[in-house]
């Protein structure tokens, strides 16, 4: 059984003036215990919204969330009023999250121990006393924060960013969750601390058989620390598959752009200069800013897409429909899929050189 199954999740934000903004559009995926699923995409593509919805800070407008087979909505909204908080608690015991900004996710007024004591009291069946304190120290040790006794007494401002993020992770682990949502857990951290934290998450995932959703826009870490990658663009998943497949053989033009943009110290200077020139040429063909283009029926990426063609004005086929080989992108692995007309044999064969508009 999957730890978490999400089907057709749709989230709308109400905007000023009453109009609605669809931040997440019919998203489906499953998290397996002991596996990491990476969710990548540019800023504003709706990654955090997914996390916020799963953590129940935002109400979805449609879709189903099954947490270990139990409908999340059923667990709360349809429950008896008396049991509401209890069910909510049960949900959060199973699912926890780690925030992006370790400086903001700990209350500056409280000690590290306080932050860890709360979940233990609420979910761990602990009572105040030496046992609780021991559990707190154990948690700290499990995230390599030693000497635990010292750390427990400290206030967040006395810790470095990496240490704080460890505390935040420890707090999330305190409820002994089955699913962990990590929303860009390392983007605010220094490169070397980044690795430490990711390694830690990786180890915990294995030790505790966690299902981990790793949200990031760093393709390299996504590839290295997850088994599956899901690429989001403007609220919808445009590509997903095993991580090596997605990164090494990106199918969707957007994924390709992402992959090409990532700094790569191994590339030679000449190659870099050439890539830069290519990009410049490409860029000149588009108008200065297309980012604010309207959403209509067509492919959402087409205004930026180097391969846009007339057919892109209609909606590309849904994800599961595209399986198997990806033209022009080399081999395709099992479960690797992208949402693009380029991959549809029935659509126009030749990639259009010009953009749609």
């Amino acid at each position, binding site marked *: 059984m999957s730890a978490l199954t999400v089907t057709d999740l749709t989230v709308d934000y109400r905007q000023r003036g009453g109009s609605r903004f669809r931040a997440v559009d019919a998203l489906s995926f499953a998290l397996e215990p002991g596996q990491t699923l990476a969710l990548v995409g*540019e*800023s504003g593509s709706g990654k955090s919204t997914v996390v916020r919805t799963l953590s129940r800070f935002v109400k979805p407008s449609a879709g189903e969330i099954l947490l270990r087979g139990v409908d999340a909505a059923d667990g709360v909204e349809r429950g008896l009023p008396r049991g509401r908080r209890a069910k909510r608690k049960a949900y959060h015991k199973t699912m926890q999250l780690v925030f992006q900004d370790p400086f903001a996710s700990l209350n500056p007024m409280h000690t590290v121990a306080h932050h860890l004591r709360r979940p233990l009291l609420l979910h761990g069946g602990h009572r105040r006393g030496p046992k609780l304190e021991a559990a707190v120290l154990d948690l700290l040790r499990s995230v390599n924060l030693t000497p635990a006794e010292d750390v427990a007494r400290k206030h967040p401002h006395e810790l*470095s*960013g*990496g*240490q704080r993020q460890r505390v935040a992770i420890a707090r999330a682990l305190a409820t002994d969750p089955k699913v962990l949502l990590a929303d860009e857990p390392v983007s605010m*951290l*220094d*490169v*070397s*601390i*980044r*690795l*430490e934290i990711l*390694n830690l998450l990786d180890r915990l995932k294995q030790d505790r058989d966690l299902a981990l959703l790793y949200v990031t*826009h*760093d*393709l*390299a*870490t996504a*590839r*290295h620390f997850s088994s599956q990658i899901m690429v989001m663009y403007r609220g919808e998943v445009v590509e997903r598959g095993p991580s*090596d497949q997605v*990164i*090494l053989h990106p199918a969707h033009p957007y994924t390709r*752009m*992402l*992959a*090409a*943009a*990532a*700094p*790569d*110290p*191994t*590339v030679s*200077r000449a190659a*870099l200069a050439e890539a*830069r020139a290519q*990009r*410049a040429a490409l*860029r000149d063909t588009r108008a*200065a*800013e297309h*980012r604010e283009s309207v959403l209509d029926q067509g492919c959402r990426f087409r205004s930026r897409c180097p391969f846009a063609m007339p057919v892109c004005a209609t909606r590309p086929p849904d994800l599961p429909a595209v399986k198997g080989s990806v033209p022009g992108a080399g081999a395709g692995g099992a479960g690797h899929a992208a949402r693009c007309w380029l991959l549809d044999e029935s659509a126009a064969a030749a990639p259009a050189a010009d953009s749609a508009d």
Partner: protein
Amino acid sequence: MIPSTGTETRDDSSGLGTDLVLRASNVSVEYAGSRPTRAVREVSLELRRGEVLGIVGESGCGKSTFAYALTRMLRPPARMTAGVVEYYGRDGEVIDLAALSGDRLREFRWNKISMVFQSAMNALNPVTGIGSQMDDIFRTHRPGMDKAARRARAGQLLEMVGIDPRRLRSFPHELSGGMRQRVVIAMALALEPEIVVMDEPTTALDVLVQREILDEVERLRAELGFSVVFITHDLALLLEISDRLAVMYAGQVVEYAPAEQVATEPLHPYTRGLLRSFPDLRGQRREMHGIPGNPPDLREALVGCPFAPRCESVFEPCREITPPLRAPAGGWPVACHLHDPAHDDYSSEGGR
């Protein structure tokens, strides 16, 4: 006057010494407090005309502080306790930045050195339009320009960084993060300065935007020929765009080398650690580790090599003797006993 490390650096600069545009010698900066933070410790660097000098280092190692010292932007509680920052004009004049004050300082600023601040998003006044903020620059520094000319120039600058000139009337919050970043870069280039200091100009942006901005900077530099001091903790990025590279650790420069060489054969264990901290996008999956441990508290007095507690190749002298920044034969300056001929016997086993 100039301390030994500085001299050595210059000697090493393969005949480009005449092309200097900025030289920092022995700069130290302190944040006052009950226990002062010595954020920058005797750093000496030089910048040549048209060059991209990268400064890399972990968060909190004093990069921004040093950048502020270069531009004379330190304000209390920060204080430059020692050192000299000199600017070398095209006509051969040498200006000691510390000696500037009042109108002369103002004139110097932005005309010669401009800066793109870390968190450039916040470097724009939220309540006035970006056009008016660009206008301020011309009004102050180019009093001869009339209104129309100022407008035209501002529009031109925006266009140069790929933003519709009609956006001049926008307020900062109406622009996306990437756009704001580009506006700030446009502003930094407004007076066509000789030096632009960029303090982590892309850290908060996603890869695509970051790439666009880097391309932009590269193009503009090629066009306008200014020198760049580029600060980041993303070593992978820096290796790509910079000509030379200074690696800072705990307020000190520990390695100072041409970028390509650092990429292939870094000397300092810290640089090596940093390089290993980047997962390779396309390479083989492998077990990776960051540099274990934490950087030292800059409020403490440091004895020995500051990196020693975290260093995988630490050996005896590291704990007692602070290694000076010194170039081994045929190499580039590095502050590590491993590369000190005096400790040759160890370096062979400690190096890779």
